[in-house]
Each structure stands twice: as C-alpha cells, then as structure tokens.
C-alpha cells in the first residue's frame, strides 16, 4: 500500500451541483495540490435529517502527520461528520476529500488507508477478540502482527473472551487494537477513550504519540478537552453543527476558562480579586473565593502569593463552560 498522496481525485458534491460548473479541469488541478498537504479536507459540509440539522456547514483542513482534535459536547455533530468521512452516511451538501480521495467514489481505496474506531461501538457478540481480529485482518489483507502483539500487551487485552462478556472499556480496547494494528495512514478515532480507566487513557495517549511519530495522521474526537490537549497539535471545537473555534492547543488553552476555588487563611482580599483581569463572576464569601478565570492565571496567582492560602483548586471545567465565551461569539 503506497503511502504517497494517492491518485488525484475530483470531489463530488452531494446534491449541490453549482460547483460542478466550475469545470473538471481546474478542480482536478486544485485537488492535486490539496492532496499533497491535507489528509482531510472538508468544505461547507452539511448533513440534515429531515428538519434536524446535525451538521451546518463545517470546514476542516487536517494536515498530513498531525494529531487533530475534534472537540465538542455530545450532539454537536462530531460523529455525523466522521461518518460522512468514511462514507457511512452521505452529506446533504458540501465537499469531502480524505487522503486526496473522494469517499463516495473511491471508498474502498480510501478505507484501505484508514482505520476507524466508531463512537457508538458495537462488536459481534458471539465472537472472541481473536476471531474478530482474524476476520478484520482478512478483510484488510493483513494487520501489522508485531504492532498487534504490542497493543494487546499494553492494553491488557484477553483475546479469548467473547465480546458479549466484555465491559464497554474492554470492547473499546479491542476496537483500538484493530485501529492501531491496521497499516493505516490515517486513524479516525471517535471518542476512543470513553469507558477506559485513567491508566488505559494514559496508554492510549502513548499509542497516539507513537503513531504520530511514525508519520500517521490522527483525527481524534472527544467531548473531553483535556484528553485532546494532551495529544493533539491542533483542535477544532464544534457546537451545534458548526466549528466555533479552531487553533493550536496552546491558542485554545489561552482562551479556555478555568474554575478557581481558593480558601484563604484570613479574609479573602475581595477588592484585589475583583480587579484581576480575566476574572468572571467572583463569588467571595468570607475566606472562600469561587470564580471563573479566562486567560492566564498569572495575575491571580500573584495575589494569592501575597496572602496566606489554605487550599487552592484550579480546574478545567467541562467543555461547555470552558468555551462559554466562544460559543456565545459563534454566529
């Protein structure tokens, strides 16, 4: 299986004919250049189910060799977008190009170079992991055996148990095994760590970093920002079927809000705290301070350093809160 850019493709629009009139030739050339630098290219993707608009115009550009985080609360349209990439569902409109290929017309070749872990994971109940791995290996024309053995050991997978006897987390491990042992240029992982314990999540991050080091592109969806921050180079945040923010992890970290809770030894210095830039809705009650902080924590920490503090909690809120500001800005 070649790992180059692959044949140039002509993207097709689903039921969106006007772009066709721009002429095959020029678009063909455009695809050649995008295939060189983009692993996934999505333009104005929409997916409607009747009156429900699951995806409302998403643009994405995932570069070769990067780990791209696709973050959003449940129901934001992450899985819908991902299932469009794999040609499991067909867009209402918009263009998709994966590894320079059109998912609809060149799906078989495309999927031979992709490995996918579904978000809603359902595996054949009566099969053992070993049987499933063998079956998928036959469909893929082989797996990377050394990688398979490595992942089995690191995730602690018992290959001889049937799927129906496995917990959600253990099924997830089997799906991760199938993905990481596939000889794939692009891993599309939809909520891959849900159900995994923290130790296994840590192991998973290691697998993602190794895959990236080996030149594999990873498209990683999650509703947990911190997980994506640990592994991703760039992140797109999705809300109600739209990308509300996109940038590097550092850029996002600067914009994300954090929750602060501090107990002072004496009275909380209310006036000083209210003057801190980036502090939102401070709740000061005797010795206790509770607030939301956006931007750098440095000015607040400077105040805390001058006053004796009994305890301090600085934590990432859930995604919704972290990007409350961003969501509000979204059109």
């Amino acid at each position: 299986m070649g790992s180059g850019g692959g044949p140039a493709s002509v993207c097709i629009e689903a039921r969106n004919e006007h772009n066709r009139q721009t002429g095959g030739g020029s678009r063909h050339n455009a695809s050649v250049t995008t295939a060189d630098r983009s692993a996934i290219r999505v333009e104005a993707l929409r997916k409607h189910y009747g009156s429900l608009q699951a995806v409302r115009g998403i643009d994405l550009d995932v570069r070769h060799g990067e780990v791209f985080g696709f973050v959003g609360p449940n129901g934001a349209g992450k899985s819908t977008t991902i299932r469009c990439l794999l040609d499991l569902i067909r867009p209402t409109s918009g263009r998709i190009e994966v590894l320079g290929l059109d998912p609809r017309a060149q799906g078989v070749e495309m999927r031979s170079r992709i490995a996918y872990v579904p978000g809603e994971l359902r595996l054949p109940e009566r099969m053992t992991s070993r049987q499933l791995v063998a079956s998928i290996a036959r469909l893929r024309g082989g797996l990377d055996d050394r990688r398979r053995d490595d992942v089995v050991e690191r995730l602690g997978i018992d290959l001889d148990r049937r799927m129906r006897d496995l917990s959600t987390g253990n099924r997830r491990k089997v799906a991760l095994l199938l993905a990481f042992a596939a000889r794939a240029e692009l891993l599309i992982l939809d909520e891959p760590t849900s159900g995994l314990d923290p130790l296994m999540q840590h192991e998973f991050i290691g697998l993602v970093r190794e895959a990236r080091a080996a030149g594999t592109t990873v498209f990683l969806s999650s509703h947990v920002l911190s997980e994506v921050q640990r592994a991703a180079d760039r992140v797109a945040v999705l809300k109600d079927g739209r990308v509300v923010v996109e940038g590097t992890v550092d850029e996002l970290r600067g914009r994300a809000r954090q929750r602060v809770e501090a107990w002072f030894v004496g009275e909380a210095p209310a006036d000083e705290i209210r003057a801190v830039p980036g502090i939102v809705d401070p709740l000061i009650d005797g010795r206790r301070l509770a607030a939301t902080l956006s931007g750098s924590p440095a000015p607040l920490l400077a105040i805390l350093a001058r006053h004796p503090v009994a305890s301090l909690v600085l934590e990432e809120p859930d995604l919704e809160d972290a990007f409350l500001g961003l969501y509000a800005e979204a059109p």
Partner: protein
Amino acid sequence: MSRVVELVAGPLRHLRRSTLGWGIGLAALVGLTVAFWPAFRDSSGISQAIDSLPSGLVEAFGLEDFGTPAGFLRGNLYEFIVPLLLAIAAIAAANGLTAAEEDSGRLEIYLAQPVSRGALFLGRALAVAAWVAVITILILAVQLASDSIVGLAIDTGLVVATVVLCGLLALAHGALALAVAGWSARPALVLSIGVAVVVAGYLVAALFPLSDVLEPLQALSPWEWALGGDPLVNAAEPWRYVSLVVPTVALTIFGLVGFTRRDVRAA
C-alpha cells in the same frame, strides 16, 4: 481472495447457531412424519375419512390421494409446512445478516474496512443462499434416508425436484427480505413484509382455486409457480425453477442498489 471469501464466510459463521436450530427442527419434522407412513398405510380409516370431505376442501389442503406415498408426503409436508418453515428460515437469516445487524450498529466495523457496500451486501446474500442450500440438502437427505428405512416407495427424482423447489421458494422470500433490508434497516419491517408475503402466497395458491372468479389469480402466487404442478407426482417443468430464480436475483440486485445509495444506520 481471502477478502472475498471472508465476505461470505464471516456472515456464514454468524448463522452457525441457527443452522443447528432450523436444521434439527426441519429434519426431525421430516423424519418423524415419514416414520408414521407404515402405520398410516395399514389403516384405511383416515383415507376414507378424507374421501368423505368436500372435494374443494381436500384440494385446498393438498389432501388428494392421501393414501399414496406422494399424497402422504404432499399433505403432511410439502403442501404447506416445509415450504413455509423453510421460507421463514430464509427470511430470518437474510434479516439477521443485514437489517438486524445494521440496526444494532454491528455492520459499522465491517463497513469501515476496505470493502464496498455492494460487495458486503452481495457477500451476505450469498451467505443466505449457501445457508438455505445447506438446510435444503439436509431436508432432502433426511427425506431420502427415511423413505428407504420405512419403505416409502416414491421416485427419488420427484422428491429431489420437490425439495429443491421448496428451497428455491424459500430463497425467493429470503431475497425479498434482502430487498427490503437494502432500502431500510428496520428488522421488524423486513420480517413482517417477508412473512406477510409468504403467508399471502400460500393463501392465494390454496384458497383462490375454490372460487371461479379468483381462480385465475392463483397464478400470482410463488407457491403456485413452485409447487402448482404437484412435483411429487409430475416431473416439474423447467420454467418453474426459472420463475423462482429470476425474482431471487432481481430482488437481491434491487436490495443491493438500495444499500449502496442510502445512509448506514448508526447504533
């Protein structure tokens, strides 16, 4: 090559358990029925009782010549119960490999592999065909073996033709299930349409001849195409086989086209 084999063999492994259930059930039905032949042959009472029924009723239930080996097998097995059960088995197998799998979200992991939708669907259609063939051959083997054990004298060729026609009738209904499943991943819809058609087909073939007005419409029923010529008595004409194979292929292709065009259902 292994990819192509896996597309059929994988789904077939999935049907292993139902092979056991349906195979043992149908084989037992056939074997036990034939076992009663000697006792039945030696007691004339039942034949006389049937002769005293109105002739339309006798015909509707396939009870003509009930005292002969052909009449006995037709009335007890091949007029209704064997074709019906075999068709329901085929519908269930087709549904189990397509709509039910998709509805439960278990198709997704396979569709994410380098196989086309059409190849996956066709692989499952072939698995259904192979499975129905295995059950049909099992019925045939039990039928021929028990015939010779209890001394039920009937032409082997006619028995083979009859059982094969039942298998093809079942396959046509399996293909109907595939056609529905290709366009809609709703197992309840696939099963209810499949069973409704097989039962309606039987009723049309059995009851319409009782009415002069409805009798010509009997030709609409696949049951009539398969078994209307009384294949245990008369050698079945070649067109009867064709009349079952052609819709089987057409319905499968129709389902395949639907499956390649629509969204795959999420779990």
